[in-house]
């Protein structure tokens, strides 16, 4: 939280501090509605024209026993008058709705940060459930912070008393009370949330009234001097954002829309087959709502059936798409190998999560890079691309459709749990401005055989059942280079293996040369990243560059094949540091490909990188 000046705003009791940016974390029980609260604050903040980034962090348990630490759900938002790149290293304000939320989140709070605590929930029993031996409100736990102790529970009950709700229903409004207080704190309008509540509780107007009353009460609490006198609220100026029409978007939404756009640009139908798995299911949900766009979604009986149905759909002339997360991807791999062998287009989205095995389903990681590139039997190359942010998923999805259809190959899109769930403002693109993706099904029987290749792309023709004269058989048994018939010929297998590899390698000629995201193309150190590490790397690099450090940021979208100029680019730096949320997969890949002494900065805690962690790593490498 960087302060620039104080201004006196009319009707405020104390001057509002002007901040460049702020980080707020809402934390409470899974049932406390923290994700909804965060979502509303995000929307309102976006309407106030701040730039922002969010990080929803929720437990795998649907409704863990109330009051436990493992049932704590949190939503963090970083917003400001400057470009926001990450959800923020550490919260300036922590809203803790119960002792467990305090226990889990206090360690992240900036020293001196505000801890807004619902002391009404700090009962003996709740303290015990959270594992506090003594009361943190009085035992000095909060000494390094500025606690604001408010009986939110009681105040909420009072604010909705007139509406005659049950105690349980009334108490469920306390997230809106807290939101109201935070709205006051940052000078936010309440109209959008009021409207949203009216729509959400259209059939229970008493609940809408209660939630609005609670929000208003929380807001009034701030305004009417019930807060400590040194806390006067904050003012965050509008960000300098490119003009245009905006919305907030999560990675899953952007992916869904990007896939629909890709299919539309290619002029083909899309069939999406998937099996529920955290954190990938939201993509299935998003696409299932798009029936009016002719999207066929299929919830298969398992991961294997999902990918097989998608391949079957591609075989029949639709764009087959499937999605999953790490363990589900492992199940799909045999079928993906078939799609490589029979050379059919397929888009596979992997929302990565912490592993191995079930690992931590709701926590983010980037540890499926090896699985994506090499995780199949035999020599089975395909294309792998990665999105760097929620909104980037839109373009990445379109690129996946382009590569899959042009090269008749499976394309794996790597996102992660963070990207899938986090949201950011998005300058809504004009779909008509995207170049069309030319897809031509083969119709001419003259000289046709199913593995007749385009001399340039080496792709085979897409010959779809229903086309007269092109009846043919394809399958997992090696196919003859000349006829496509079954072949066990040794020389043929050698040739087919080589051509499959050459086809995928050739994609490198069809993707942009790797650019430097920030900084010069030569220097002391390049930080290389891929996927959702984009935010913290770019902020860390720009922070250090402002201090004169000769560091550059290179961020990969195309992981396999790698951009044609990447080796040359990396050779321009004295040192190369790959920052990734795994034990060193991209760094190993780059060392293997380029024989360069590449170093790794690796984090696998289930949490995104902090900017400070990357800054520290750069500085230590450069001896500064």
């Amino acid at each position: 939280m960087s302060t620039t000046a104080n201004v006196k705003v009319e009707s405020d009791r104390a001057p509002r501090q002007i901040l460049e940016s702020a980080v707020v974390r809402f934390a409470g029980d899974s049932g406390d509605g923290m994700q909804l609260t965060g979502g509303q604050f995000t929307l309102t903040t976006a309407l106030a024209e701040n730039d922002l980034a969010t990080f929803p962090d929720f437990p795998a348990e649907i409704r863990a026993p109330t009051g436990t630490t493992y049932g704590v759900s949190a939503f963090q938002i970083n917003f400001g008058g400057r470009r926001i790149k990450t959800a923020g290293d550490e919260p300036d304000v922590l809203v803790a709705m119960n002792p467990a939320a305090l226990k889990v989140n206090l360690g992240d709070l900036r020293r001196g940060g505000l801890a807004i605590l619902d002391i009404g929930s700090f009962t003996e029993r709740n303290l015990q459930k959270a594992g506090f031996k003594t009361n943190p409100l009085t035992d000095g736990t909060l000494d390094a912070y500025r606690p604001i102790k408010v009986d939110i529970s009681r105040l909420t009950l009072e604010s909705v008393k007139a509406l005659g709700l049950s105690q349980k229903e009334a108490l469920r409004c306390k997230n809106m009370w807290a939101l109201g207080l935070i709205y006051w704190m940052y000078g936010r309008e309440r109209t959008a949330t009021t409207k949203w509540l009216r729509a959400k509780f259209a059939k229970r107007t008493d609940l809408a009234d209660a939630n609005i009353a609670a929000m208003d009460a929380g807001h009034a609490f701030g305004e009417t001097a019930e807060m400590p006198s040194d806390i006067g609220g904050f003012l965050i100026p509008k960000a300098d954002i490119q003009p245009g029409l905006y919305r907030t978007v999560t990675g899953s939404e952007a992916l869904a829309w990007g896939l629909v756009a890709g299919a539309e640009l290619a002029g083909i139908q899309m069939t999406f087959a998937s099996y529920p798995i955290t954190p990938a299911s939201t993509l299935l949900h998003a696409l299932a709502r798009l029936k009016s766009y002719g999207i066929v979604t299929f919830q298969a009986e398992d991961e294997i059936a999902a990918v097989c149905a998608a391949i079957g759909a591609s075989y029949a002339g639709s764009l087959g798409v499937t999605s999953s997360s790490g363990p589900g991807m492992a199940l799909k791999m045999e079928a993906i190998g078939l799609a490589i062998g029979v050379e059919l287009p397929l888009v596979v989205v992997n929302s990565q999560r912490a592993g191995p095995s079930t690992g931590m389903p709701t926590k983010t990681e980037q540890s499926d890079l090896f699985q994506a590139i090499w995780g199949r039997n035999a020599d089975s190359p395909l294309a792998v691309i990665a999105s760097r942010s929620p909104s980037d998923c839109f373009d990445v999805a379109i690129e996946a459709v382009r590569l899959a259809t042009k090269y008749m190959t499976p394309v794996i899109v790597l996102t992660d749990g963070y990207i899938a769930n986090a949201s950011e403002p998005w300058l809504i693109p004009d779909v008509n401005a995207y170049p069309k993706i030319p897809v031509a099904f083969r119709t001419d029987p003259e000289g046709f055989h199913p593995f007749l290749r385009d001399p340039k792309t080496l792709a085979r023709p897409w010959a779809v059942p229903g086309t007269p004269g092109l009846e043919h058989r394809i399958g997992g048994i090696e196919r003859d280079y000349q006829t496509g018939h079954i072949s066990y010929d040794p020389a043929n297998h050698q040739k087919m293996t080589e051509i499959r590899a050459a086809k995928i390698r050739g994609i490198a000629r069809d993707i942009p040369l790797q650019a430097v995201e920030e900084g010069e193309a030569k220097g002391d150190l390049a930080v290389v990243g891929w996927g959702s590490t984009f935010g913290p790397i770019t902020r860390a690099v720009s922070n250090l560059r402002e201090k004169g450090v000769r560091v550059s940021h290179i961020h990969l979208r195309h992981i396999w094949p790698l951009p044609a100029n990447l080796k040359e680019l990396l050779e321009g730096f004295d040192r190369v540091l790959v920052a990734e949320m795994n034990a060193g997969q991209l760094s190993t890949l780059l060392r293997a490909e380029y024989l360069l002494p590449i170093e790794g900065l690796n984090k696998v805690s289930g949490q995104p990188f902090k900017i400070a962690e990357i800054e520290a790593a750069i500085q230590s490498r450069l001896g500064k």
Partner: protein
Amino acid sequence: MNVTTPLEKLTPKDFASDQEVRWCPGCGDYAILKAVQKVMPELNLPKENIVFVSGIGCSSRFPYYMSTYGFHTIHGRAPAFATGVKLANPDLSVWVVTGDGDGLSIGGNHLLHILRRNVDVQILLFNNEIYGLTKGQYSPTSRIGTRSPSTPSGSVDYPLSPTEFALGAGARFIARGIDTQLKLLPDLFLRAYAHRGASFVEIFQNCIVYNDNVFADFTDKTVADDHQIHVTHGKPLLFGKDGKRGLRVKPGSFDLEVVTVGENGIAEKDILVHDETSRTLAQLLAAMRPPNFPMAIGVLYCNPVAPYGDRVYQQIEEAKAKAPAPGGLNALLRTGHTWQVSD
């Protein structure tokens, strides 16, 4: 201009591919292939609208020998591929060819679900009670005590009944045939094709190399009449050389019993009449085994409901009618909360 070209009448030969058939000499698959090729012209479909999808195993080589579209996929998953094909293009006639190992062991889950969903495909399950292509291990339909390389002392697990499995999975069409009955098989395939929804046909198929004569207890000429009953909708359930043996509900029970017309006061009116729409009767027929009962052959069950694809596309059409989405995707991206940032 709408000009409909009458379909050129195709012959069974037109459905044979140019590939050399590589099953063992004497394999029951040859006869089934012939029966399928025989029935294809009867479908009156353009050849290009027919797709054969298979998994892995001897039976799953089938698509290579048909001159239609064909997709030889991976072990056990043919139903899932077929579902995708059918979802993408409901106009295609999709035939799944599988075996007892492919369909009921590694692929049991997918077979269960394609039947449950009632995807409009024909599933031909070649049951030879053995793994052929992997050289003779016992399969999930092998009878208890089956000696094989993996069960040298005889198998100890109980076998699965494909038709009972299909019925349990919710199949709406269940038929049984025998590889050597070249007259009957095309009729069964035609019935399967005519049924809209998942049609399940179990074909007893002799593996001459690893499990020869395993079905001899009801297929051998000497016992066939007494150990097979050919069921026809609306006809009494009679069998036997002279057609005098029949099935009736055993008085005081829910079971069937074999009786003889003219003996013990049994008249033809006492014999059950086959009702292929009765799930209960189908269950009883499917469960019958020699030697105490004849093996039921023919259409055991046919009781159609709307296929999966119909309902999928109906929802899409309804959604389109409700939200015609003018402006397409651009409009979609601009729905919900948006805000304008001005210069």
